[in-house]
């Protein structure tokens, strides 16, 4: 038998390199720039892709092994929850509205991320970056699919979830997440990573995750908690992609720094605005509460984000421009948003309500500087009206910010009694914004943002009716026609929680009545 000695053995890093970047080569039959047409046009200069560091060195066999284990455990819980009517264990049926917001506004974003990372996973010249993006692409498909499955049980028994994907493409407030992610996906791959991997999945991720998951835990929804934790472990890998991409761009060429800074400014602000919906959910939709939005912001944005930007200072990166205004907003945005949705609940497929006295007391305690002064009186007035039989629903349409597409409900930093209005003129038209930062985002890329499909504009232009509808017919009710286009079931999906089918059904099921 011949004694054979393999002359050289590879260390861990080298072995992983052989398994990824060692697979690629410089093409010669087709020019590299034609094979990789999308990774230079943003102006980011990369001199040496070999400097890309892969922090989690997961080969596919390890990926399948560990993810397979996670899926087995997760689906066991989802199945048990479904079999045992686990939804009967939640605190109160109002909680389900948090899940409605999730399946309508968050799950579709997972799908966009899946496709966006597929594009990034083909576009970068560097093999290590492509592998990380592709793993993220399939992880995001996982999130879309597991969320769809986990919430499926709720969808069988409660309203406001069944047409989520249709609503996402049409309903007014859902253009906020839709435009956010489409802005990211239609940008180039480096901006995409700065937007999603860094700004959203690194800087802001805990502000999406903690509110929903701890909300679920406090309200007896173990299925969602389990999903949340299982998905969040994928997020750890995603976060490292984000921080690695940022460091890599900043280290490759000084000229990249101002480009990256501008993206960080833009995406911190767009991400912060998107989180308005989460802030509102956290402070108003959870019958049993944990952290307030303000507390979550202080913990995860102010202190954790603070540490991060101290770390990046050595590259010449500063805190995002909107940082101070975002911190100012922590006292206000959840209340301002809930007020808006309470008003527009006829056109939104989830329920709203006036908080109970206990909940109002919690809000006073958590928001000592703002709640009693500016917001309690509003909700107490609404309750009075409701009790007098005047639960009103606003039948007009709000003005939207062109950039973030949220109704103009935000106030001037430092003065919550003044709605903030900004505007820009571009090629003969006037555009409106909620803040200096949304205005600046527009001014930097007007050709992009003039394309926005603003739901209110589209309604007024007659683009939100089903085919064959005649707006000139006598007795035409435009709002009803829009709700029909939305496929919103009037009286089931929308309006106040009081008197809703959700409320009646849950009460009946819980008390065991047949």
């Amino acid at each position: 038998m011949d004694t054979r000695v393999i002359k050289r053995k590879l260390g861990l890093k080298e072995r992983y390199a052989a398994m990824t970047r060692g697979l690629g080569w410089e093409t010669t039959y087709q020019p590299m720039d034609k094979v990789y047409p999308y990774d230079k046009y943003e102006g980011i200069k990369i001199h040496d892709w070999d400097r890309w560091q892969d922090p989690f060195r997961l080969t596919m066999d390890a990926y399948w092994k560990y993810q397979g284990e996670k899926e087995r455990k997760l689906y066991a819980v989802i199945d048990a929850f479904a079999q045992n009517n686990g939804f009967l264990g939640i605190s109160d049926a109002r909680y389900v509205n948090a899940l409605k917001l999730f399946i309508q506004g968050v799950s579709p974003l997972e799908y966009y991320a899946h496709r966006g990372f597929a594009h990034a996973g083909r576009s970068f010249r560097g093999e290590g970056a492509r592998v990380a993006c592709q793993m993220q692409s399939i992880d995001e498909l996982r999130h879309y699919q597991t969320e769809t499955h986990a919430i499926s049980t709720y969808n069988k028994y409660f309203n406001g979830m069944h047409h989520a994907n249709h609503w996402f493409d049409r309903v007014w407030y859902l253009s906020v997440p839709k435009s956010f992610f489409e802005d990211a996906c239609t940008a180039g791959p480096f901006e995409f990573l700065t937007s999603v991997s860094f700004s959203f999945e690194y800087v802001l991720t805990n502000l999406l995750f903690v509110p929903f998951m701890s909300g679920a835990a406090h309200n007896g929804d173990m299925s969602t908690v389990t999903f949340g934790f299982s998905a969040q472990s994928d997020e750890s890998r995603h976060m490292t992609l984000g921080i690695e991409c940022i460091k890599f761009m900043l280290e490759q060429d000084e000229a990249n720094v101002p480009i990256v800074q501008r993206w960080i400014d833009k995406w911190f602000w767009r991400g912060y605005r998107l989180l308005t919906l989460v802030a509102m959910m956290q402070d108003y939709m959870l019958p049993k509460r944990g952290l307030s939005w303000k507390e979550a912001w202080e913990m995860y944005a102010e202190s954790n984000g603070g540490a991060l930007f101290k770390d990046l200072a050595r590259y010449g990166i500063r805190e995002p421009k909107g940082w101070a205004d975002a911190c100012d907003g922590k006292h206000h945005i959840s209340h301002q948003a809930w007020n808006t949705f309470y008003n527009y609940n006829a056109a939104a497929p989830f329920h709203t309500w006036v908080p109970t006295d206990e909940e109002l007391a919690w809000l006073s305690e958590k928001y000592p500087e703002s709640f009693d002064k500016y917001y309690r009186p509003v909700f107490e007035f609404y309750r009075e009206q409701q009790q007098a039989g005047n639960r009103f629903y606003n039948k007009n349409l709000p003005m939207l910010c062109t950039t973030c597409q949220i109704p103009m409900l935000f106030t001037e930093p430092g003065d919550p009694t003044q709605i903030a209005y900004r505007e820009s003129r571009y090629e003969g038209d006037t555009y409106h914004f909620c803040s200096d930062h949304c205005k600046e985002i527009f001014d930097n890329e007007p050709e992009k943002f003039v394309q926005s499909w603003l739901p209110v504009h589209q309604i007024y232009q007659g683009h939100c009716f089903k085919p064959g509808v005649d707006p000139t017919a006598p007795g035409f009710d435009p709002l009803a026609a829009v709700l029909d286009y939305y496929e919103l079931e009037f009286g089931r999906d929308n309006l106040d929680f009081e008197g809703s089918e959700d409320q009646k059904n849950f009460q009946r099921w819980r008390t065991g009545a047949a």
Partner: protein
Amino acid sequence: MTIDLKTRSIEPLRATYAHVAKYIGEGRIPSRYEEATMGAQPMVNFHYRPTWDPDHELFDASRTRVVMSDWYKLRDPRQFYYASWTMTRARQQDSMESNYQFVEQRGLIDKMPAEMRQKVCRVLMPLRHVAWGGNMNNASVCAYGYGTAFTAPAMMHALDHLGAAQYLTRLGLALEGPDALDEGLQAWLEDPIWQPLRRYVEDTFVVQDPFELFVAQNVALDGLLYPLIYGAFVDDHVAMQGGTAVAMLTAFMSEWFDESSRWVDAVVKTAAAESDDNCAVITQWARAWGTRAQAALQPVAALALGDAADAALTDARAELDTRLTKAGLA
């Protein structure tokens, strides 16, 4: 003792989401695959054109010449959604781990004749790069294709290719060490045997139509490569000559090819059956790329099988043609 189990009977309001029911019928309970796949992709009211492709919308069916009234008709017969795909692959990787242990404990690699080990590396190591091309192209199909039914399995397929490339890498390290990988790359870049295939692969990298790319990669190239290499070379030739270890350590690839061919064939069949135009264009792609792939594989077959090369390649082409005829291509 009697046990009285009173279960509360609560009637659901609906079977599933409306965007799923639209495809499977009202009142039907969907499979997990259906519920997670149907109607997932946004289709209207896009906000901005891609700055990287302003001639199309973000998701745009017109990127391909193939026309479908409903892209969700392209179902995957394996019904893979993330969980079922991952758990299937986890079982397969477990089995590969056992194979590695088996081979290592019995010193089966050392027992292979040295020339056999070297030959296996000469043939298989450059194929790491072909598999990498398969990864890149399927990532493209996922990024630029239309409809979740078609695009989601493409990303799974991309990562399967990466898995295959990594198993090949591991095999090379076990057989001959890191030098084998370097030599494989050199051959891929410079040896005349590999240039037609490398040219083929690089030409696929610039195909713009995602369905044509699907045909060029998954139908034409892999449809010939896998039977030739893992069938004729590894199973029929190497294993028969003292290289069983190699067959064990590449078992994933043959299994995967058989399984994923079901998906590839179903996609071709459904798309071709939709219209005469689709059938014509897909047939033309399959023929053109198939002929090119066969020519590109000729020198590789000769390297692997010597005199038996022509027959093996002809057989592989016949096998592929049979599949395509069954799928309804002209």
